[in-house]
């Protein structure tokens, strides 16, 4: 049984059909990269996995349980599925430590001491033990994104979704964030990431999913997919990157 199973997911924004029947299985410990041109539906697909976008048709199963549209179902889903955003979205009025502690306290009703212990652990994991008392505007983009990762991890999700987590960063800050993601992958965290970092995807991911016009066009082992694309669309996408 896969950890997350998407079946026949359809989604439209008005008249625009963004997802036209997506089937995707995510196994425990798997690292999946969603690639494709902008507008191919990869970010929307990612956002349906934790219910940030509602779906028009299809089913989402997490750990064998179907996710309905009831609030308790959605909460359960989000406890299982964490997310990191392109724009970090840290809470500007809280310190790094408070950002990480907030949700465990408020949503999981952990005691302050408990939440603090986990938060310190997670901030250490992303290498920011010395920045705990800093506010987001006192941190670099790369540091903010690492706090955002720690914040998501503190909820102990079973899957972490990463939506172009390095796209808003200055080039010199990209690697510190990728290093953290790589470390998570090595520790066996289940990851689904939308990314433009092809070399990183190739090195770290078990599976590459190429999306084109709202469908999964091609998927498989990254080496294979990159070396011998089966469809002209992927060939041109990969070629376009190389050229």
């Amino acid at each position: 049984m896969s950890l997350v199973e998407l079946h026949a997911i359809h989604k439209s924004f008005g008249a625009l059909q963004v997802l036209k029947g997506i089937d995707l299985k995510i196994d425990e410990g798997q690292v999946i990269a969603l690639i494709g041109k902008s507008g191919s539906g990869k970010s929307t697909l990612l956002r349906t996995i934790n219910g940030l976008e509602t779906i028009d048709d299809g089913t989402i199963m997490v750990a064998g349980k179907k996710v309905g549209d009831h609030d308790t179902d959605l909460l359960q889903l989000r406890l299982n599925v964490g997310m990191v955003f392109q724009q970090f979205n840290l809470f500007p009025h809280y310190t790094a430590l408070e950002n990480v502690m907030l949700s465990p306290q408020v949503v999981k009703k952990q005691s302050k001491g408990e939440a603090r212990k986990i938060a310190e652990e997670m901030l250490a994991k992303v290498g920011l033990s010395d920045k705990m008392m800093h506010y987001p505007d006192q941190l670099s983009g790369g540091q903010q994104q690492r706090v955002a990762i720690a914040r998501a991890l503190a909820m102990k999700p079973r899957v972490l979704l990463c939506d172009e987590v390095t796209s808003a960063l200055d080039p010199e800050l990209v690697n510190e964030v990728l290093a953290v993601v790589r470390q998570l992958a090595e520790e066996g965290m289940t990851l689904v990431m939308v990314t433009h970092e092809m070399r990183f995807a190739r090195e770290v991911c078990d599976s590459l999913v190429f999306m084109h016009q709202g469908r999964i066009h091609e998927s498989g082992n990254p080496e294979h997919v990159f070396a011998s694309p089966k469809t002209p669309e992927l060939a041109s996408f990969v070629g376009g990157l190389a050229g």
Partner: protein
Amino acid sequence: MPEFTLWDIVHNLLLAARWTVLLSILAFVLGSIVGLALLLVRTAGNRWAVRFVRGYVELFQGTPLLMQLFIVFFGLPLLGLDVSPWIAATFGLTLFTSAFLTEIWRGCVESVAKGQWEASTALGMNFTQQMLYVILPQALRIAVPPTVGFSVQVVKGTAVTSIIGFVELTKAGTMITNATYAPFTVYGCVAVLYFLICYPLSLYARHLEGKFRHVTR
């Protein structure tokens, strides 16, 4: 004919000014409570609730305060409710204040970045938790200067209640004028008293604006 000294005039106006201040505070506090409730109803996003609040705001922004007070003062007795000028003035000004504050605050809530909602949703928070810990603390910082600024409008709005017979600063001014036949002196004093109430509020609003402009947290 008795002679009135300036002190007689000012002394009596000061007594009446207490009611202006009290009515302003009441209208502001009650209006804030109603305005906050309307804001929450509207932000929670039920379509009918949104329409209702929008209509409510349009109604009070689109009619003169004087008409609103007339309708409260003359309308409630038609429903069999006997209202004193005190109650009519408080009720009318509360409605007026709530409509403006809820609209000011809506703008503040909407100016909080959408990513803040998304991040807190993704962390499993429900609407109440998001509002309480993420959205309102940020909206509040933005809201303080315009809210304090609007309190000046409430103070000046209380002058209109003199028409329905509520004895506050303006009404007292009219009454004293009728006894002294010195309208310029009396209304001059009235204006000075309003200014003394409103100006510190304006200054405070400006001070807060400068203070919050540089602070993002």
